[in-house]
Every structure is written in structure tokens, then in C-alpha cells.
């Protein structure tokens, strides 16, 4: 058969089998759809850089951020003693953040200085303090609270409540807000987040923070990127602690640090000068503060009438508060 006639034959087949052709197209499309996400996963990059002395569940594929930092049979939790927290008044009265907030921002290299465009003033007409352009990342933030006009005010530290049933995970369109199996930490996959901020609306506790620009802490005072020897770049490559974000347009929040995988307390817990924050494995029923005090979770909650914030939302947080006025 000559070349020309075989071509004719081929094209005839083509017209006859147009349906098959369309099926083929659909197949190509579907396979492109299936393999497309693969190169985006960062797991491959970090797979071989496991730190020593860490027990790792090797049965898992490392397809997600922070996945190498994982210990089986743990449920991390926090207990916050509101009776102990004094809001770090010595610092906040001078306009500085409280110790836990500062330690957390320092540890996570989180944007902490937006003074140039973050204004606050007192509105005489409405008799309220007004806050403009608040863009600081405060994964733990301390609020002054007064329950009723007769009670004393107290201070209320607010980290991510690490819900067992987290609304942020339900609403995220791309599963960038996710809860991993095992320790069930609620994490953010910054390789995947599209910055739609649905999770910020979904979180009943408002503990999610958006990176409005590239993280300035990756640059020196002249605007040059810091070299590979700088602490921030090393931390970033190690993914320790969690939530070190370099590029703009994604979400970050309290992730319970990951320090616990190194056998350390989270930054905020370690920095509290009153020992008001306790952290530990809830399955072991014990939490510890930085003063070395270890308490039993169930017993303390019963005795001190501990509570979870916004129990009515059904989110089942893993942060427990001990009330201020029952001591």
C-alpha cells in the first residue's frame, strides 16, 4: 500500500471513529487531571531530610506539609489557666505584645510589625477604640474580657482551639485547611492554599491570619533576601516550627508549633512568666507548663470547672480554659 492511500485509509477511519476519538480526548483530559497535582506536592523534596531521633510513621506517604513531624498515638492539647494569666501588663502598658505572643511571632518568624500602617484611635462620637488595618499575625492573642459589669476583668489568651470537628476544614475549597489522621492536628497546607479566606470566615474563634504580602522577615533591612545560613531560612527548610510562611497570599495560624516533636514545649507555653499555659498529650491525661508543674487534665477540669470556649458551636476544641474567678 502506498503512503498516500494508507493516509486516506487512516483519515477515513478517523471520520468513522469520531466517537472513539472523542473518548480518547476525554481519556487524555482525565489523565492530565489525575497527574496534574503531582508535581505540586512538596513531599518529595523533604522526604530525605528527616531529623534524627524522631519516631516517624513510615507507612505514610509524605504528601503533605509537616507530615514528617508526626508521632502516633498522641492528641495534643492545651490547658489555659485564666486565673494565672495577668495579660503581661508590664509589657502591654508600654505598647509591646505580651510574652506568649512575642515568643510565638519570634519562633514562627511571623509578621509582627505593621506599625506603619496599623493605626488605632479613640472615636469620641461612638466612645470606642477604633482599630484600622490590623495585619499583625498573633497566633496567640490576649484579650481583656469582662463578663458582666460587676465582675472583675480578666485576660483571655486565644490560640487556635484545634477543634476536633473544625469548621475551617469543612469550608476550605481546596483542602488546604486540613486535619491529619493520627494526632488530628488542624494544619494549613500553604503549598495549596489559594487565599480565598473562607476559612477565616468559617472559624468561630477568628484565629486564622492572612499573609497580605511576602513575609518581610525573609529580607534584611536593605530588602535583600537572607542567605541559607540565616536562622529563618534553616527553620523554613526544616519546617520546624510549623507555619513559617515565605510568600504572600496564604493563611497561617497556630499549629501547636511542632516543638513537641522535638521534645520541647511550644514557644508560647515556654515563655509565659506566670506558667498559665499548659501543654501535653491528652491521651496521657497530663499537661505541663514551663515551671515544670504537671497537672492531670480530667481532675483539674472537674475541680476548677474548666470549660471549652464556645461549646455550643459543636467544634469540640482541644484547648481547655480554667476560669479566672473560681480560684
Amino acid at each position, binding site marked *: 500500500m502506498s503512503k498516500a492511500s494508507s493516509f486516506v485509509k487512516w483519515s477515513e477511519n478517523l471520520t468513522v471513529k469520531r466517537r472513539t476519538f472523542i473518548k480518547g480526548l476525554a481519556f487524555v483530559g482525565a489523565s492530565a487531571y489525575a497527574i*496534574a497535582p503531582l508535581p505540586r506536592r512538596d513531599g518529595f523534596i523533604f522526604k530525605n531530610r528527616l531529623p534524627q531521633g524522631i519516631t516517624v510513621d513510615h507507612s505514610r506517604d509524605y504528601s503533605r506539609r509537616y507530615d514528617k513531624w508526626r508521632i502516633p498515638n498522641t492528641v495534643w492539647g492545651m490547658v489555659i489557666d485564666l486565673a494565672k494569666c495577668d495579660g503581661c501588663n508590664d509589657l502591654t502598658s508600654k505598647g509591646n505584645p505580651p510574652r506568649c505572643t512575642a515568643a510565638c511571632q519570634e519562633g514562627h518568624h511571623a509578621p509582627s510589625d505593621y506599625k506603619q500602617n496599623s493605626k488605632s484611635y479613640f472615636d469620641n462620637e461612638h466612645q470606642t477604640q477604633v482599630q484600622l488595618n490590623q*495585619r499583625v499575625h498573633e497566633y496567640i492573642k490576649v*484579650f481583656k474580657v469582662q463578663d458582666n459589669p460587676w465582675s472583675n476583668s480578666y485576660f483571655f489568651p486565644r490560640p487556635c482551639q484545634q477543634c476536633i470537628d473544625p469548621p475551617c476544614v469543612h469550608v476550605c475549597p481546596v483542602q488546604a485547611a486540613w486535619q491529619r489522621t493520627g494526632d488530628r492536628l488542624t494544619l494549613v497546607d500553604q503549598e*495549596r492554599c489559594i*487565599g480565598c479566606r*473562607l476559612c477565616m470566615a468559617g472559624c468561630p474563634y477568628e484565629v486564622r491570619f492572612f499573609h497580605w504580602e511576602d513575609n518581610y522577615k525573609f529580607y534584611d533591612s536593605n530588602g535583600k533576601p537572607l542567605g541559607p545560613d540565616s536562622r529563618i531560612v534553616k527553620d523554613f527548610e526544616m519546617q520546624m516550627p510549623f507555619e513559617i510562611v515565605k510568600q504572600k497570599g496564604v493563611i497561617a495560624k497556630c499549629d501547636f508549633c511542632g516543638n513537641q516533636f522535638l521534645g520541647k514545649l511550644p514557644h508560647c507555653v515556654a515563655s509565659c512568666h506566670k506558667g498559665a499555659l499548659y501543654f501535653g498529650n491528652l491521651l496521657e491525661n497530663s499537661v505541663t507548663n514551663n515551671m515544670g508543674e504537671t497537672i492531670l487534665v480530667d481532675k483539674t477540669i472537674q475541680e476548677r470547672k474548666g470549660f471549652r470556649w464556645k461549646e455550643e458551636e459543636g467544634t469540640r476544641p482541644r484547648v481547655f480554659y480554667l476560669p479566672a474567678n473560681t480560684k
Partner: protein
Amino acid sequence: MATANEHTDFNPVKTNLEHLYIPNGEVMDEQEVMRRRKIVEKAFLTIRPAEILAMLPLIVVMWVGFGHYVALQEIVGLKVTALSQKVFWGMYITNFVFWIGVSHVGMLISAVMRILNAKFRTPITRLAEEVTIVSLLMGAGSVLIDMGRLDRALHIAWYANMTSPLVWDVISISFYLTGSLIFFYTPIIPDFAYYRDNLNPKVHGMRIKIYKILALNWRGTQEQYEIIEDKIMSRLKWFILPIAVSVHTVVSWIFAVMWRAGWNSTIFGPYFVSGAIYSGTSALVTILALVTWYYGFEDYISMTHIKLVIKLWVTVDFVYMYFTLNEIIVPAYKREGREFSVLYQKFYGDMATVYWFVIIVGAVIPFFVGIWLYNMKEKNKNWFYLIAIITSLLSNIGSWFERYTIVVPTLRSFVVSPIEPLYVYLPIAGEIWITLAQVAFFIFFYWFLNKLIPHIPLWEVELEWEKYGLVKGETPTRKHLNSMGSDLKE
């Protein structure tokens, strides 16, 4: 031109006009039909100097907005807006809700009115469908503008999380856009075919080429008409209805499924849909009045047509006000802490001016003005157009601010303790330019579509005239059909 009274044997005025709303009720001869067609042809085939003058500032605004987006927001990040950790959604999400809302008019006019067999929809369908298409594109664009990482937009398809209301939204908007495009495009094909065959190739060579592609080899046979009318349009009209309703319902769920005071409402779905249809109808009233007045389309779109749209508009306004009242009364009566802090901002606080503008200028005044316009006499035509344009524009601005007062006050109010400071969101230049650029783009794109496509579905209107015996002799549509060997006979 003969008037109806001379035809004593058959009087179409008495028998058919009540539900057909043909202007003046005259029986037309061929020249008259051609004269009318020429008006439309003049409007869509030529560009007037005044139009160019009007488009120039729009292009400037689009350019500034585009520059703000590309050179600032995409490079620096959303830092160039006034958004903050507390008020993280602002003008862009407002725009999103607004544009998606406006798009609902196409569904109302072409699907609902088709189902109800309302004859007055014929000449205005196309103008309404164009609003739908362009504003749906604007709405989808608003989400993309609001996203922190535009480069990852496809992640929504790759990693779609079916429990997320945003994914539902992407799905229903895609369906609605596809359905609307079919609904919009199919009835233009015969018009494309007519102009493919009847334009002067020396003057409109380029257009003929475009129409040749767009007319999809239309031959005007009985079978082809049946495909359009019986197979596509009369089936699709049933599907487009639930899809369109789902679109704004899902948009409302983006807010209503969140744990936030002011959004935590079961009535949000119907409330948003009514607001959507209301704002869409306002936009249609503006456009109908403007286009009819400027191009002189009164022979196709009479005052009666616009009045009927206004009647719809007023009815929907009433439903919308009713839902708004429900939204206000229930939380205002209970004054629950967080809900009340949202309401307080709207009623007496720093959002009060905006809010009362929304209620009074955006909803109440259009209701009464609409009733007044509906009863206006034919001789006050110019006043009618002027007042219709101003009122409907104001109600559209009101609709935009209504979305704004849904999004912003909720985010500003406290979460932890009532003694938190009040967080303020004041949009800054970049956001405002980008929003204005969207409006400019809407107008520009709409205008551009109207230069490509006849404003009126000419063949539909002409066949309808024939059907009711309002023309003596052959209409251009009929001649064209015959010349193509059509077998469409009645």
C-alpha cells in the same frame, strides 16, 4: 402605512394586542417593517462619535484599575487594600455578590417569562441575556481578584473539597454560565444568518466573516427552527430556572453557613435571590430606558414594554423589602449581643448613612416611583425615561451598598469580648479603582456585544408580527427564509 381601523374584516388590535403589546397597533406594510429594521441596523452596525466619546473615559478607568491590579495587587499582595486580619472581605466580595445578583435578570426575563408565555419578553430578551452573561463574567472575576494566589486558581478543580460552599458556587456558576450562553446564543443564529447574507461585503467584509462562523451554517429550514424552539429553548427554560436560583442561594450560603452574627440566618437564600432579581431588574430598566431613548427603538420596545418590566421590578422590590424586614425585625427584637452589635452599626453607628441610603433610596423610593412610572401617560415620555434611568441607577447603587452592609459590619463586630475595639474598614484607592474598572468593563463589554449583535431578536419579533397578522406582505425575515429555500410555511 395603514391603520388597523381600515381592516374591518380582521382587527388584530382587538383580538391579539392585549397580550402582544405591539407598539401603536398598526398593520404594517413591508416598507414599514424595513424602516424599523433599519433603526436597529443603524444602531448596531455603526459607531456614533458620541459613543466613542463615552467609551474613552471608560477605557481610561479600566486602564487605571487594571494597572492597580497588575502592578500593585498582584506584585505586592492584598496589602494594597484596606483589608485586615479582622475585616478580611471587603469591596471585592461585595462586587462578587453584586454582579452575581445582577446576572439573575436573564433568568427572570428569558426563562420565567418564557414559561409564563409572556409575550412582551420577545424584544427585550436579548438585552436581558447580555446583562446576565457580562455580569456573570464580572462576578467570577471578582472572586479571582479577591484571591490571594491567583496562580493557584486551578487548585479548586484539582483538589475540590465538596463540602466547601465555594466549590458549590464554582459548580453552579459554571452551569449557569453555560446554560445562559446556550440560551443567549441559540436565538441569535437566525439573525447572524440574515446579516451574513444581506450585508454589503464591501463595507462589512469583516463582519460577514464573523457572522459566517457564528451562524453555524444556518439554512433556515423548518427542522432547524424546530431545533431552536422546541428542542433547545423550550426544554432549557425549565433547567435554567433551578440553576439560576441555586446560584445566588449558594452565594448566600457562603455567608450563612459561617458562625457569624448577622450572617447566621436561615432566610439568607431567598433573601439573596430576591435581592438579586431586584438588582438585575433595576439594571435592565436602566438599560432598556437608555437604549430605547438613545437609539430610538420605540417601534420595538415601547413604553408599555418598559412599564411591564417596571411592574415586575416593583413586585420584586416588594418581596425584597419583605425579606429585609424579616432580616431586621427578628434579631432587632431579641437584641442578642453579637447580632445587636452588627445591627447597631447599621442603625445608629458609623454605617448608618450607608444603611439608610440602602433602605430608603435603594428600596422604598424605587417602589413608589415605580408605581408612579407605571401609571405615567404616554405624552410624558421623556420624563418617563429620565426618571426611570435615575431611579433604577440609584436602586442599583443601593443594591451594591446593601451587599456591602451585609459583608462588612459582621466582620467588624467583636468575637471575644464586647470591649474589643471597633475595627474599621475604609476602602482605599486601589480597591475603588478596581471596582470602578469592573463597572467600566461591564458597560464597555455590553456596548461591544451590542455592536456585534442586533439589540433586538429581529426574526423572533417579525415572525410574531406575522403570526398575529400585523404585517401585510413579507417581512425581511420571511424573504430571507424563502431565498434560502426554507420550507417554513404556516
